[in-house]
């Protein structure tokens, strides 16, 4: 066996494909290793919890006392009204709402009744919320010279774990498609681009692909709908809010994937970058697990990712069948980001044309 010439060839080949190897051997490991910092605790210790007065008589001092007591297991956020706090509970902006009775700071005897509202559809938090209720009871009892009782109320319909997993699995499917099949399809047709440019345009090509692939997403949606019916899941797969968020999110992700391919001139590096974005979204985008359970850093990162909001809308709409109006701001934001991404795609096409000319 003459290994040396072949080993030398591998070395030369690696030099020619340095960008792809840097992505795989440097960027990906760095992102994976760096992402570990986002996983700091197993049980949530600083998830956002709404603190709100049960009536108008609740003073700032009352709220401050409770905020101090619940800081041990949460990151308290003060709300002006219970209605607003519950709305944010439904939107997964907070994971529990503590209603404070009046007289917390002043009362020296008797009993104080607190109510801890949790979202029943958020299955991973259901059991945890029982423990948190006990902890809240203990902390408030220790902090106050009165008899404290914390009552846990579960809002929204409760679901099983399989039902909870369905929306995120469906979202996972469209994310996978956007960052693997779409770039593969575009790169596979690279040889036709010159003729497309003379008979049509790269913009028309991109738009036709986006429209077609977005329409294709009806198939996995249909399959999830059939499976949900088959297993008699309490799940509104075809609710307008879920469909809208799912399709706009897919469109956005496909546009990003295509932009990467045009900017990388359809190279192998471009495909690896897309896979990297895919992993990044799953690891840091809060697509799989509610982000409130993770570190503030990871939460902050996830909340910078537009499709994170798309995932929450899909989950909320399917599990809770909430009105679309509750998420109008997020959906409009998602559409605006998608339009901006479309402008980015156009710029990448212009850059591609300049490069190859």
């Amino acid at each position, binding site marked *: 066996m003459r290994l040396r010439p072949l080993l030398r060839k591998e070395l030369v080949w690696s030099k020619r494909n340095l960008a792809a190897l840097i992505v795989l051997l440097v960027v990906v490991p760095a992102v994976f290793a760096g992402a570990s910092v986002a996983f700091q605790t197993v049980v949530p210790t600083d998830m956002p919890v709404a603190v709100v007065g049960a009536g108008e008589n609740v003073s700032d001092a009352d709220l401050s006392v409770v905020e101090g007591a619940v800081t041990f297991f949460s990151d308290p956020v003060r709300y002006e009204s219970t209605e607003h706090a519950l709305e944010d509970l439904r939107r997964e902006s907070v994971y529990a709402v503590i209603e404070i009775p009046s007289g917390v700071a002043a009362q020296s005897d008797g009993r104080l009744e607190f109510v801890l509202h949790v979202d029943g559809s958020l299955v991973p938090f259901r059991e945890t919320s029982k423990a948190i209720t006990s902890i809240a009871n203990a902390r408030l009892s220790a902090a106050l010279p009165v008899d404290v009782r914390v009552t846990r109320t579960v809002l929204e319909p409760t679901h099983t774990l399989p039902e909870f997993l369905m929306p995120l699995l469906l979202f996972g499917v469209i994310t996978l498609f956007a960052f693997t099949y779409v770039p593969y399809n575009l790169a*596979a*047709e690279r*040889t*036709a*681009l*010159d*003729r497309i*440019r*003379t*008979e*049509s345009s790269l913009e028309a090509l991109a738009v036709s692909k986006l429209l077609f692939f977005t329409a294709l997403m009806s198939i996995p949606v249909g399959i999830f709908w059939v499976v949900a019916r088959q297993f008699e899941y309490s799940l509104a797969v075809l609710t307008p809010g879920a469909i809208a968020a799912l399709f706009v999110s897919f469109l956005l992700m496909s546009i990003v994937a295509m932009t990467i391919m045009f900017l990388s001139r359809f190279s192998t590096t471009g495909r690896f970058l897309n896979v990297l974005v895919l992993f990044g979204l799953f690891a840091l985008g809060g697509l799989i697990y509610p982000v409130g359970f993770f570190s503030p850093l990871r939460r902050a990162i996830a909340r910078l990712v537009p499709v994170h909001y798309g995932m929450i809308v899909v989950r909320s709409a399917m599990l809770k069948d909430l009105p679309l109006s509750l998420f109008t701001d997020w959906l409009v934001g998602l559409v605006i980001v998608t339009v901006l991404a479309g402008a980015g795609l156009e710029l990448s096409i212009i850059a591609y044309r300049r490069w*190859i*000319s």
Partner: protein
Amino acid sequence: MIANAPQTLTVKNLRREYGPVVALDGVSLAVEPGTLHCLVGPNGSGKTTLFRILLGLTQPTGGVISRPEATVGVGFQRPSWYPDLTVAENLHVFGRLMDVPADGWQEYVVDVLGLDRVRHRRAGALSGGYAKKLDLALALLKRPRFLLLDEPLADLDDVSESQFLDFLASYAGAGNAVFVSTHRIADFATVLDRVTVLDHGRVVFDETSEELTTDDRSMTEMYTELVGPTDAKSP
């Protein structure tokens, strides 16, 4: 700068630079209907750059292009089609894209190029010759008044090459303009109406066939004298 001209494809004083490299240096020529016009030059002479500028795929850094108001068909040096579609599917997709009427012309082109036997074969699995033929078929699909072909004989066998040359001559004879970019002048010696020789980005020769000898060897010798022996192919 692009001006409008209805009948003739004309370039004047065309210039294209890639950083310090001058690919085209003041190129002027005119492609007229009813002629088979060969653009000849050695590898790296600027033929493909000029070809891509004519198609609008590359922007010139200077000069004027007057494009005819007529249909233009293009054959690329590297065949350009969908590799995952069959020959028939490629013809159908691009035919629809070009609004080609169903008047039998497409079948005629398939027949002329001998593509019928591979009609249902995936384009990406075609041999080099058939891959080129599919590209030529797509160039001819809309029966263009201006047919621009970059190295059209590459990968064709001798019989196919001869048949296709005859076809090109008759196509030009029917009043269409055929503009061919090639580095093998001898292949076109018997059919061309005009030849433009490009070397180091400059036009070094531009004459009609009447002004040239019809002898292949003389044409090859003439070409060799102009550009040197490197790329001249003996007939």
